[in-house]
């Protein structure tokens, strides 16, 4: 009964989406406010029905209803409750339903919080949003129905892929989808603007919070995915330049560029056409990511099932939306009124430079990800494009970007003073120079690049703080006055500073982990100890345990630092009989910003065991930096300016204006 209910709710959601995709857009053309107002109701209705459908699916998993095929394939009655719930989206069908749920959620959010949007814009935005919903609802119902029944219900399920039996599955996909799918809203805004033929500062002011929201979630989702891969795969790596990871990085880069260019459109009414293009690009890359991950073109843990029909369906959606959006763009963009040009040395100029770097960096990632696929189709030759390629292309571009970052917020709008800004950054440069010198002194030999990389990170950190220090007058006025001023600063200034500092923190983590980390791979017998960087890892022996749906062999290590006991680590191997597979549970110990990491290899007949031991200094900063970036996003979102909206008269006029066609 429950699965049928879920299925039926999804069909109803599709019908609501069909109404929302046509009626409001038609109403907007006819300037019929009644037809336009339908969008708000259907958007909320759609969300309720998709949510009902999703709840029904989760209920099937919680009850271990193995008469439902996806439950049978991906669940097990002995799993803990949390994994029963998360396994609802630990497979292709369920994860697509989550995708659609979030799509509907964003539509409903626009309907609820978009009270200050002009009617026509709101109707068009929700209409376009619903075109996407129709496509993906159809995709689920026609090719990936999670509610299909099996005639004779099996007694036990085939269990969830053991690698996914982790808390990460509860956090990573929802966050990532909130980011990915969040860009559907900015896409809808861009298409609506093209349909209406007008973009103004008010439009940019409405787009920015949505872009910020999506960007914040995407940042957290990527960081969470990276941490999950780091502790679960047992290789100690946190980023593999795997196409699936790149699929999330591409929209992030385009989205970051969008955040910055929308600022120029909002403040200076310029770069409009470019901002629209970025909004289209960010969501297109999200779709490309969905295609790469879900179609089975790539084989990875994310490609749950490869069914050619699904791949072709997604490819069709992809072509339709990306092709359609770009065709509309080519047709309509020229009629948008161009904003003024501006001086190269200005805040606007700096933001353009930021966009150039981000888009180029994004292009290198797109190229590196798609080139092997294209080459295989054309020549049949199989290649792998890995870290060396990206380090050599993405790396230099990002270094140039990071040198420029502190200048941006310090330059004035319209006409900036480059020399003046350089003088204001003297403090940051001095800190960087000290950092370079100290690193040189401590390191002695070693790669020359390392001290400069540390210098760059410190310069970026101090540079981002410079604006805050100047504006609060810290170091010049009494602390209490500075604090009062700090409270008075616009939240967006704090947001910018935090986002940029987060970048610096992540950079520090990356340098520390890659340059100063230590690794040992060896075989140890019980009682033997291995040591790296003054840490001794003594192998005490193995214990066997029985988990709910797995058998576990855990190895106990006693850790001493310079002879003092600091703790016990227990990496383990789990065997899941239902799937006949093993997983590797690495043990982690956080010491300040550093981590110790142990993962197990094979056990030899004589009782010795293969282990990988890593010492990773500053590694925690990589993810901490991402969280600081996301905090910057949240702070910017809470800025008063974004909540209050554009001046009223302009909006009334725009709402009453005749269609631009």
């Amino acid at each position, binding site marked *: 009964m429950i699965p049928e209910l879920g299925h039926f709710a999804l069909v109803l959601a599709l019908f609501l989406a069909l109404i929302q995709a046509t009626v409001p857009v038609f109403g907007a053309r006819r300037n019929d406010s009644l037809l336009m107002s339908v969008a708000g109701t259907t958007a909320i209705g759609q969300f309720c029905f998709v949510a009902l459908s999703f709840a029904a699916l989760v209920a099937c998993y919680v009850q271990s209803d193995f008469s439902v095929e996806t439950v049978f394939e991906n669940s097990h009655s002995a799993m803990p409750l949390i994994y029963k719930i998360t396994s609802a989206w630990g497979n292709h069908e369920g994860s697509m339903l989550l995708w659609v749920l979030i799509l509907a959620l964003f539509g409903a959010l626009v309907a609820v919080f978009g009270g200050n949007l002009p009617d026509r814009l709101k109707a068009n935005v929700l209409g376009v949003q619903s075109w996407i919903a129709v496509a993906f609802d159809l995709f689920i119902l026609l090719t990936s129905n999670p509610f299909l029944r099996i005639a004779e219900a099996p007694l036990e399920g085939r269990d969830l892929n053991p690698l996914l039996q982790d808390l990460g599955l509860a956090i990573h996909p929802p966050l990532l989808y909130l980011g990915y799918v969040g860009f559907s809203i900015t896409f809808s805004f861009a298409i609506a603007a093209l349909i209406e033929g007008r973009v103004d500062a008010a439009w940019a002011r409405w787009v920015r919070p949505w872009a910020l929201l999506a960007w914040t979630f995407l940042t957290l989702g990527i960081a969470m995915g990276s941490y999950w891969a780091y502790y679960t795969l047992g290789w100690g790596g946190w980023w593999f330049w795997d196409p699936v990871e790149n699929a999330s990085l591409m929209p992030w880069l385009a989205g970051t560029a969008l955040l910055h260019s929308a600022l120029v459109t909002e403040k200076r009414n310029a770069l409009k056409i470019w901002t629209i293009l970025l909004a289209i690009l960010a969501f297109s890359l999200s779709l490309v990511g969905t295609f790469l991950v879900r179609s089975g073109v790539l*084989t990875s843990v994310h490609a749950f099932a490869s069914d050619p029909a699904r791949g072709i369906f997604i490819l069709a959606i992809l072509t339709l939306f990306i092709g359609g959006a770009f065709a509309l763009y080519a047709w309509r963009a020229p009629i948008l009124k161009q904003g003024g*040009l501006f001086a*190269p040395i200005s805040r606007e100029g700096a933001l353009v430079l930021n966009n150039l770097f981000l888009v180029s960096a994004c292009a290198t990632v797109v*190229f590196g990800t798609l080139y092997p696929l294209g080459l295989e189709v054309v020549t049949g030759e199989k290649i792998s*494009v*890995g870290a060396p390629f990206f380090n050599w292309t993405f790396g230099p571009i990002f270094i140039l970007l990071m040198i420029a970052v502190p200048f941006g917020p310090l330059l004035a709008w319209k006409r900036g003073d480059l020399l003046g800004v350089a003088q204001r950054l003297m403090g940051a440069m001095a800190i960087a120079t000290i950092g370079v010198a100290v690193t040189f002194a401590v390191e002695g030999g070693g790669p020359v690049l390392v001290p400069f990389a540390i210098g760059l990170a410190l310069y970026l950190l101090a540079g981002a703080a410079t604006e805050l220090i100047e504006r609060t007058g810290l170091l010049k006025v009494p602390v209490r006055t500075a604090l009062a001023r700090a409270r008075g600063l616009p939240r967006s200034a704090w947001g910018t500073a935090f986002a940029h500092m987060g970048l610096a923190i992540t950079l520090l983590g990356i340098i520390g982990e890659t340059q100063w980390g230590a690794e040992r791979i060896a075989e140890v017998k019980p009682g033997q100890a291995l040591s790296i960087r003054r840490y001794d890892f003594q192998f005490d022996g193995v214990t066997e345990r029985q988990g709910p749906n797995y058998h576990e062999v855990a190895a106990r290590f006693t850790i001493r630092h310079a002879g003092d006991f600091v703790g016990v680590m227990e990496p383990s191997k789990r065997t899941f009989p239902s799937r006949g597979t093993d997983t590797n549970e690495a043990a982690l110990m956080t010491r300040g910003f550093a981590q110790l990491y142990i993962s197990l290899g*094979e056990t030899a007949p004589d009782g010795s065991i293969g282990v990988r031991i890593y010492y990773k200094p500053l590694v925690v900063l990589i993810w901490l930096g991402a969280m600081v970036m996301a905090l910057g996003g949240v702070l910017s979102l809470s800025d008063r300016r974004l909540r209050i909206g554009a001046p009223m008269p302009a909006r009334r006029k725009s709402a009453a204006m005749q269609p631009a066609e």
Partner: protein
Amino acid sequence: MTRKRRRLVLISSALGVLAVAVALILSALKDSIVFFNSPTDVVEKHVAPGSRIRLGGLVRDGSVVRGSDLAVRFEVTDGANTIAVAYQGILPDLFREGQGVVTEGVLDPSGTFKADSVLAKHDEKYMPKEVADALKKSGHWKENEGTGPQARTQ
């Protein structure tokens, strides 16, 4: 600054950054990509010793020999040809005789492939696509091969 000059600065800086990106991509393409080869490819294409490649195929049954200090030797086959592989380190959890594997490294002059990484497969059901294609090409593909131990236990 005139309008014309402003536009010129904008366009030339855009082209400048673009040129840097293209130059970087082209130079990286020259020496940082790795070609995938099956054992038959290695034999037929006369892959030069010392050049970095990926070698993929099935781990030949009964070929895995473990030495001291985590050294291991095994043979990778696609049915038609077989290449000996030497590796030192921890093998991925899903490394098994008769299963698909992808290794990366260089061929030494004696014809042994010195692998510095053996790639982990993420899922027991998944045969690396390159390996599946190579097996199909050499005519040694069996339909149930990609389904791995799970199909066998049931």
